[in-house]
């Protein structure tokens, strides 16, 4: 009988048994587990992910690259991240600990993805604008002014908000007045009445009564003004003219600004008081 055929027939009849693991394999597993445990205790347990309050902002071109051609999607996604900066992972970070210089870079980078959206200036104004640190307030005001200047016809409300922050949070009247001067970048007809009145009210508040009256007279000459608004302006002018203490404050204030803004200088005074 052929030995090879005998062997093959025996193999066909004998059931296959499991291969027993070698002893060295078990020892290797134990040693490797020990090495993993040592590595963990020695180094890995101390390593933590970087949890910046405000992470470094990507550059403009990096943002565009990440967008994969869909910038609106990336804008909305990263805005959700912006909203929770410093407040993720169980943290609650006070505003004074934020790096506002980095924050404003984030604002500008996100504006580059969708300049029409108002969500970033809203976050800047209503969340990060609540800070009490003057340097941080100034950065927010500067950002809001810059954002609005790109499209003043639609973004005037951010100029108004920046002026309010400057006047009532930062206490800087000059900055507030300079901010409101930005409104001249848009045609007056494109701005609502309450925005156009802000410079006048601000000047009246700080005692520049005559300047406020002049501004209101110029506004009242607008032929498209509703009668109710014209009557309101007349009442305001009359009220200012009757306030004697405001005149004293105006005389006492050093370096008083010119009484008419640049876009009103060419308009003649009308028939109002």
């Amino acid at each position, binding site marked *: 009988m052929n030995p090879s055929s005998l062997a093959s027939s025996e193999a066909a009849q004998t059931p296959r048994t499991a291969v027993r693991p070698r002893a060295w394999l078990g020892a290797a597993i134990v040693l490797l587990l020990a090495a993993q445990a040592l590595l963990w205790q020695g180094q890995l347990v101390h390593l933590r992910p970087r949890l910046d309050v405000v992470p470094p902002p990507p550059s403009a071109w990096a943002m565009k690259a990440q*967008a994969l051609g869909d910038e609106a999607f990336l804008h909305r996604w990263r805005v959700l991240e912006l909203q929770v900066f410093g407040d993720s992972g169980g943290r609650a970070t006070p505003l004074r600990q934020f790096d506002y210089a980095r924050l404003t870079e984030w604002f500008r980078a996100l504006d580059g993805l969708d300049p029409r959206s108002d969500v970033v200036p809203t976050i800047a104004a209503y969340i990060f604008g609540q800070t009490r640190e003057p340097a941080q307030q100034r950065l927010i005001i500067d950002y809001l002014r810059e954002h609005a200047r790109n499209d003043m016809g639609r973004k005037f409300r951010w100029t108004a908000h920046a002026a309010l922050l400057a006047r009532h949070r930062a206490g800087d009247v000059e900055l507030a007045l300079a901010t409101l001067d930005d409104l001249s970048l848009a045609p007056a007809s494109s701005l609502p009445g309450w925005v156009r009145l802000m410079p006048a009210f601000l000047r009246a508040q700080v005692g520049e009564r005559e300047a406020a009256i002049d501004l209101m007279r110029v506004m009242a000459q607008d032929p498209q003004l509703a009668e109710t608004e014209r009557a309101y302006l007349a009442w305001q002018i009359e009220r200012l003219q009757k306030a004697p203490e405001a005149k004293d404050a105006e005389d006492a204030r050093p370096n008083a600004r010119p009484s008419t803004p640049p876009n009103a200088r060419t308009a003649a005074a009308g028939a109002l008081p």
Partner: protein
Amino acid sequence: MSATFRYVWLTAIRDRLFLVLPLLLLALLAATAVLGRASLVEGEAASVALAAGATRLLVVLGLVIFVCFHVQRLFDSREIEAMLARPVRRGVFVLSYWLAGGSLGAALVLVPVAGLALLQPPSMVGLGWWTASLLLEAFLVVALALTVSLAVGSAVTAVLATLAVYLLGREIGFLLAITGGEFGLAQEQGRLGLGLDVLMQALAVVVPRLDLFAQSEWLLYGPHAGVGGWWFVPQAAVYVALLLAVATFDLRRREF
């Protein structure tokens, strides 16, 4: 031709494509819609943009995986030989397979479109544009996956290669802007920048401009927002024809 068309649909139904993908799309729609509402303001716009971008990716991914693995299965089981044994030209086979795959994509696209319509995007005209461009993108992606998988032996390699071309197509506009100096990088590098620009221009000729398709800005600001307008239509027409011609050429070279 109809036999191939029906065959692809039958295998899609058998593989539960119309059960799994629509369910995943619905889950993704719900998740992104809720996530968008977490935005401080413009929650509806955020929901729409996030839902649109995410569901578009899922539709593309589902079609690519299905087509690449399906073609691979055709070769492994030799079903393609049986199909080509019939009196049908290879070009007609490629065309009918593409039409079947594209119609699958069109059926799948209905889910995100219906979901976005429910979310009431600011621009319904933009939704119409978005729908049309996503449909064309689905047909283009099916053609791309078919061409690659007919040329490549492995399904996994075909999926990876197709997705690589897809990602390059979505980034090509940005890469052209980089090398063209719009971000100042190429200008700083002188001759190297010029060489990169030439290289990228040559590459852009053979890569589809997928960044022109399904732009989320259309949903938010109308069809006049975004980049390129209606140029996605001729792009899809030309590139699909090119891909089908290449696939036919490759299939005719094979011996079964």
